[in-house]
């Protein structure tokens, strides 16, 4: 049994063992228990030359990773919070994502950027927002959103092995989970969704810790005779539209479970995929399950209202399926 953090550390270690061009860096990466265990042991195994602490300079550090990538390295830049990437957006969006195209595809940028979405426990507005939709709008940037201890190391390994710049978004709540992880880690293909539950009444498209949420909601619905199909997208870019359309062609109903905000978010993108398809039509309105479109409040009382609620989601699906 490995914890989420241990599983990520294992995958990183494996990548670093396998390829000397992989190195990891981040603010506080070598703190005892740093990054919730997900970087533990790297320094010991590979020395500070390949796993190093850095100044608090996100913008420069993102550029640093790009530069090393241009020279053939496969850097892993670890960030404690996804909000910190806002300081590095110029390098991420204007450079990491664009340079391969701008150069006429003379080179690739195999940079992986890990960032954690805080959740609950009063993290408040600046430490718990989910900003994946922003990244997924940008061409040539991969956005990976693991949902489980089993998948996360496999997707991380795939990200590190991939030649495209990749933002790998974890959510803090998953760090509490443990699971059996097959060793050595086998990379998963990016852009392939995973049917985590089969069903015929409604397609639940989910990412990150909302996959578990959707699974729990689905279990609740069994008593009502509702069989939900739960699809874990695993990555937002590339996004497995075929898997969504395939499932929807069977269920004709669709719910989207996002860790982020609705406007211009995942539910929107999934709606676009289905709406623009010539062959697939829904029999019912699309149901969107997401956090409120507000900055996360700090208070535990307000947090309760901010995040999606399983009971409420189950009721919404019941109402939808019963028509």
């Amino acid at each position, binding site marked *: 049994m490995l914890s989420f953090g241990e599983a990520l550390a294992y995958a990183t270690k494996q990548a670093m063992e396998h390829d000397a061009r992989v190195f990891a860096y981040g*603010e*506080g990466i070598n*703190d*005892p*228990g*740093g990054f*919730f265990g997900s970087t533990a042991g790297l320094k010991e195994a590979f020395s500070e030359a390949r796993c190093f*602490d*850095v*100044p*608090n*300079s*996100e*913008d*420069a550090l993102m550029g640093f990773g790009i530069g090393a990538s241009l020279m053939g390295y496969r850097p892993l830049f670890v960030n404690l919070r996804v*909000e*910190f990437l*806002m*300081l590095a957006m110029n390098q991420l969006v204007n450079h990491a994502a664009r340079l391969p195209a701008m150069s006429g595809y003379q080179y690739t940028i195999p940079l992986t950027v890990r960032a954690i979405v*805080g959740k*609950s*426990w*009063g*993290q*408040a*507005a*600046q*430490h718990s927002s989910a900003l994946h939709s922003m990244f997924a709008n940008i061409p040539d940037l991969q956005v990976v959103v693991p949902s489980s201890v089993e998948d996360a190391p496999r997707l991380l390994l795939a990200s590190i092995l991939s030649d495209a710049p990749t933002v790998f978004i974890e959510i803090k709540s998953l*760090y*509490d989970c443990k699971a059996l992880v097959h060793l050595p880690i086998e990379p998963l293909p990016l852009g392939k969704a995973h049917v985590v539950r089969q069903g015929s009444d409604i397609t639940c498209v989910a990412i990150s810790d909302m996959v578990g949420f959707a699974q729990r909601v689905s279990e609740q619905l069994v008593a009502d005779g509702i069989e939900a199909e739960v699809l874990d997208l695993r990555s937002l870019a590339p996004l497995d539209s075929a898997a969504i359309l395939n499932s929807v062609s069977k269920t004709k109903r669709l719910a989207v479970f996002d860790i982020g905000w609705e406007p211009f978010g995942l539910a929107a993108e999934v709606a676009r995929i289905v709406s623009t398809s010539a062959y697939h039509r829904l029999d019912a309105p699309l149901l969107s399950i997401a956090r409120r479109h507000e*900055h996360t*409040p*700090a*208070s*535990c*009382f*307000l947090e*309760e209202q901010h995040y999606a609620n399983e009971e409420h989601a189950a009721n919404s699906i019941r109402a939808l399926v019963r028509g």
Partner: protein
Amino acid sequence: MALTNLPQQLLRDLHEKMFLIRAVEERIKVEYASRRIRGPVHLSIGQEAAAVGVLHACRQSDVCVSTHRNHAHYLAKGGSLAGMVDELFGLDTGCCKGYGGSMHLMDLNANLILSSAILAGSIPIASGIAFALKNEGTKRVCIGFLGDGATDEGVFFETLNLAALMKLPLLFVVENNAISTMTTFSKRQAVPDVVGKAERFGVRGMTVDGNDVLSVYHAAQDILQGMRQTHEPFVLETVTDRLCAHVGPIVYPSGIGADDTLQSRWMREPMLILNEKLRSEFPDQLDASLARERNLRESVDQVFIRGAQRFDADALRLQLPAAPPAQDVRRV
């Protein structure tokens, strides 16, 4: 600054503010264990002198911005105690109605208008505040607190340049505890010299003992007086120690060295230094001082007790699980 010149009132006032902050934070440690305060908290224990010294030297109408480690600034600037405690408890009677929490204490009445948990996040904002204050034609200044960790961020230097170029009445107080979470200053900067850098950007600077509230106070008084004439920015570096872990009220600290280092830090901590001065300077005031401490502690306790009661009532009413799932709050 000869101690014998010290007016008794000044020492009294400084002592009162210093003790209040310490008492509040010691109480937070206790209350945190009850799981009513749910969120990361960054204690200022050991660093109170910069906040109290500078903010006692400034005017109520001066505007202050702060960071993740803002408790001391908030209280020293005159922020409402009940507003703070209720905010920590997540109540709608908190200074930010529960939206902000520990990392974002703000109180417009006290002119502590911003606390950002993004490193150096409040720094450029301070420049805009200073611009507004200068435009007003009054002699108000803006005071921006930051840690040594925030001076790694490029925006600090952009802002120094802007402040020097536009001649903004902006005082940066860099609380240099020589650490950022668990990474020391000298591991992060090739030249860990804040004042030297600031001067190269056209901003005058000065370093003081950040554990000696009187030194800080007198330095700040001089600086602020000058700034009100010249409208020019300034960097005051206060050298200090963090006595707790970076985040979470863990009594036994992590990342700040071994036991002996810690012990020696506790031997030069601001309350100790201040109390020694008080005792040597005004030995007859010892009883009064102890009585003040008792009173302060009692009133702090009262505020916490009232907050806790409201928390419990709200938790009941809103059916919040009384004990939330265990969380790794050591590093958040």
